[in-house]
C-alpha cells in the first residue's frame, strides 16, 4: 500500500515522512502549492518580502530536501485555484459579512482531506498521512471512525478537523497523535532531519505579517473590486451611539483593541450587525452567552444527533471545552446550551463537541 505524505517543509510533516519510511512503507511526498505569496506582495501596505511562510520557495526546498534524504518520490501539486475558491474567497467574504472565519478548517475540509486525498488516490496512493496532532481509530462496535485528541493537549488540532468525513478518516494517518511536540523534535533530530529546530508556523499561512485587514484590501484591489462600504456606528447594548467605525470587517467579537474610543473601563466588541453596519460595544460581562446555534454540521462518533446530548463544547481554538447540552433543531442545526455562560461566542468560528477525548462532531456558529 502506498501512502502519500502531505509535506509542508515543517518539522511535523517531515518527521511523519521519516517515521513512515523507517516503518518500511511505500511513500510519495506531496506538497500543495496553494497560494502565490508574491501575488499581493508590496500592494497597499502588504510586505514587499515574503519569507518562511507556507508555500514559499523556502518551504518547498526544505520538503524536497527531506524527500531526497529519505529517497522517496516527491512532487509539488498545484491546487491554487481550488484554494482561492474554497478558502481565500470565503475568508474574505466572511469578514466582510461581519463574521470571523477559520481558514485552517476550510483548508482541511476542501484541500488537505479532499483535494489532496483525491490527488493521492489518482497517483496510486490509498492513504494520506499528515503531521496534524490528532488521533483516529476505527471502533468496530459502533462501526465508525473516531477522531480523538492527541497526547499533546497543547498542540491539539482536532478543533480544525471536525469536518472530516468517515471516508476521509478511514484514509488518513496521523502518526504524531501519540507524541508531544518536544518528542517530535527529538525524533526529528534522531532521524537526522536538518530542520528539527525550525520554528513552528503561527499565523494564517497566506497572510504574512498577520494583518488580515490589509490582506482583504489588497486582495479585493487585485480582483478589481472595491471594499464594500460597511462603515457605521459604534453603539452600546442599548443602542446609544458611541462613535464611528470604518467597516465591520475590522472587528471580531471580544476584540478590545482598535475601537478608537476613550473609556474609563475596558470596552469590547459585543456583536456585529452587517446589515445595519453596526458594531455593538460594551463591558466584558456583556460578552457572556449561555447558548449558541451551530449549523452545517458534521458528525463523527455518531451518525446524527437524535435527542438531547451532554457534551463539552469548544467555541474557538484556544478555548477550554465547556459543559453544555446539545439539542437538535431540524436536520442541520443544533442548539448548544452551556451550563455556565461562555465568553465571546463568535459567528463564523466552529463549535466542536467532545465526549472525553473523542470528537462527537461540530458545526459553524451562526
Amino acid at each position, binding site marked *: 500500500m502506498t501512502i502519500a505524505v502531505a509535506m509542508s517543509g515543517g518539522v511535523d510533516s517531515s518527521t511523519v515522512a521519516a517515521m513512515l519510511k523507517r516503518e518500511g512503507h511505500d511513500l*510519495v511526498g506531496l*506538497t500543495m*502549492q496553494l497560494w502565490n505569496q508574491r501575488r499581493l506582495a508590496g500592494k497597499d501596505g502588504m510586505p514587499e518580502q515574503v519569507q518562511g511562510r507556507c508555500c514559499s*520557495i523556502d518551504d518547498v526546498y526544505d520538503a524536497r530536501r527531506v524527500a531526497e534524504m529519505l529517497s522517496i518520490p516527491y512532487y*509539488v*501539486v*498545484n491546487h491554487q485555484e481550488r484554494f482561492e475558491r474554497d478558502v481565500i474567497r470565503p475568508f474574505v467574504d466572511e469578514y466582510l459579512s461581519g463574521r470571523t472565519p477559520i481558514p485552517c478548517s476550510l483548508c482541511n475540509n476542501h484541500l488537505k482531506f479532499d483535494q489532496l486525498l483525491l490527488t493521492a488516490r*489518482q*497517483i496510486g496512493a490509498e492513504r494520506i498521512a499528515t503531521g496534524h496532532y490528532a488521533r483516529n481509530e476505527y471502533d468496530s462496535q459502533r462501526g465508525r471512525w473516531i477522531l480523538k485528541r492527541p497526547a499533546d493537549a497543547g498542540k491539539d488540532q482536532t478543533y480544525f478537523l471536525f469536518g472530516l468525513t468517515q471516508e476521509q478518516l478511514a484514509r488518513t494517518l496521523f502518526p504524531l497523535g501519540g507524541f508531544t511536540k518536544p518528542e517530535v523534535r527529538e525524533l526529528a533530530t534522531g532521524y537526522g532531519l536538518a530542520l528539527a529546530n525550525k520554528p513552528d508556523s503561527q499565523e494564517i499561512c497566506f497572510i504574512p505579517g498577520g494583518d488580515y485587514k490589509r490582506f482583504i484590501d489588497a486582495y479585493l484591489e487585485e480582483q478589481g473590486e472595491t471594499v464594500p462600504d460597511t462603515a457605521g456606528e459604534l453603539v452600546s447594548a442599548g443602542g446609544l451611539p458611541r462613535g464611528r467605525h470604518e467597516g465591520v470587517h475590522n472587528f471580531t467579537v471580544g476584540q478590545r483593541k482598535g475601537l478608537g474610543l476613550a473609556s474609563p473601563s475596558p470596552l469590547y466588541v459585543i456583536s456585529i450587525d452587517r446589515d445595519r453596519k453596526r458594531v455593538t460595544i460594551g463591558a466584558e460581562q456583556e460578552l457572556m452567552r449561555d447558548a449558541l446555534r451551530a449549523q452545517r454540521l458534521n458528525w463523527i462518533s455518531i451518525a446524527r444527533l437524535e435527542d438531547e446530548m451532554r457534551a463539552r463544547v469548544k467555541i474557538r481554538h484556544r478555548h477550554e471545552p465547556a459543559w453544555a447540552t446539545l439539542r437538535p433543531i431540524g436536520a442541520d442545526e443544533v442548539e448548544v446550551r452551556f451550563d455556565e455562560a461562555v465568553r465571546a461566542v463568535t459567528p463564523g468560528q466552529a463549535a466542536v463537541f467532545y465526549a472525553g477525548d473523542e470528537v462527537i462532531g461540530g458545526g459553524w456558529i451562526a
Partner: protein
Amino acid sequence: MRPFLLEQFGNASSIHQEGQHARSAVEQARASVARLLGCRPAEIVFTGGGTESDNLAVFGSVRPGDHVITSAVEHHAVLHAVERLGERGVEVEFLPVNGDGVVAAEDVRRALRPNTRLISVMMANNETGVLQPVEEIGRIAGEAGVRFHVDAVQAAGKLGINVDSIGCHLLSISGHKMHGPQGTGALFVRRGTRLEPLSAGGAHERQRRAGTENVAGIVGLGQAAECVMRSGTQERMRGLRDRLELGLLQHAGGVNGGGAPRVANTSNVWFDGVDGEALVIALDLKGLAVSSGAACSSGASEPSHVLQAMGLSPDRARSSLRFSLHRQTTEEEIDRAIELVSSQVARLRELSAVTR
C-alpha cells in the same frame, strides 16, 4: 568534453599555450555549430543556454520607443523578456495563433509599424512541436528592413536549419535539446547586426557575451552539432511518434496542434476528463517521464499558455500531456508507453467517476 573537465584548465582567453589549446577547441566547436546553421563561425556567439540566447536577442536589440512583434505561443524566455520590455516603455505586440497554434505570416505584415525594431517568432513550439512559417516571416521582415529573431531551440537537431533560407538576423539554439550538455547554447548573429551585450566585463565572444568561456560545455555543444549533422533524417522518430499517437488516440480526446506541420519528436495529447498533473505523477511513478504545462518556481505545473493561446479551454489545457521522443527511443518503449498511459487514464477516469 572530458579532457576539459578533468585535465586541461586553460582559459580560452589567455595568452599561454594551455589557453591557446582551449581556444582552438572552442573555435572548432564554433565551426561545427556554424555548419549546422549554415552561417560563418564569426556569426556564432556561445551562451549559457537557450534562455540566454533568447534574452540576448531581445534585450540586445530593442530600445525604449521601439516596437516589437512576437507571438502568444513563444517560450517564456522570449515572452517574459518582451513583457519586461513592455513595462519599460517599449511597444509590444503578441500575435494570436490559430487553433493549431500557427501564426499567420500576414498578421506579422499587418502588425509592422515604422518603429518596429524586432520580430521574434519561434521555429518549432516546445509544447506542441508545431512549426511556424518562419521563412515567410523572414521574407516579410527582409522587405520591411526589420530585424528578425528565430527561437530555434526546439527545432535544432530535429530539422535542417539554414539561416539564409529563413532570412533571419538572430537565431537561438540550446545544447541540451540536441543531446548536448545542459547550460550551453548559442546565438547566431548575422554580420552587421548590432547587439547590446547583457553582461559587462570582458571582450569575450566579440564583445557580445562577457565572461570566461565554458570550454567543456562549448566543446560538447560542438560535438552535439556534429552528431546531428551525421544522423540524417527524422523519419524513424516520426514513425514512432505516429505509432504513439495512434495508440493513445483510442483513449484520448485528440492531439493538440495535430492539424499543423510539426517536428517529429513532440506530441501534445488531450485526455478528456483526466487531471493532467495527476497523470504526469502517476506515470512518473511507473517510470514514464512526460510533462504537462510549464513548471512554476516551486515545481508545480501551471496551465499552459500555449494551449490557451490556441483557444483551448482551461480544462482541456489541464488535461493535456506532452510526450517527447528522442533518437534512442525504441518501438518497444513506445508500445509500453501506450499500454501504461492507457491503463492509468482508464484508472483515473474510473476514480473520478467514483469520487464525483
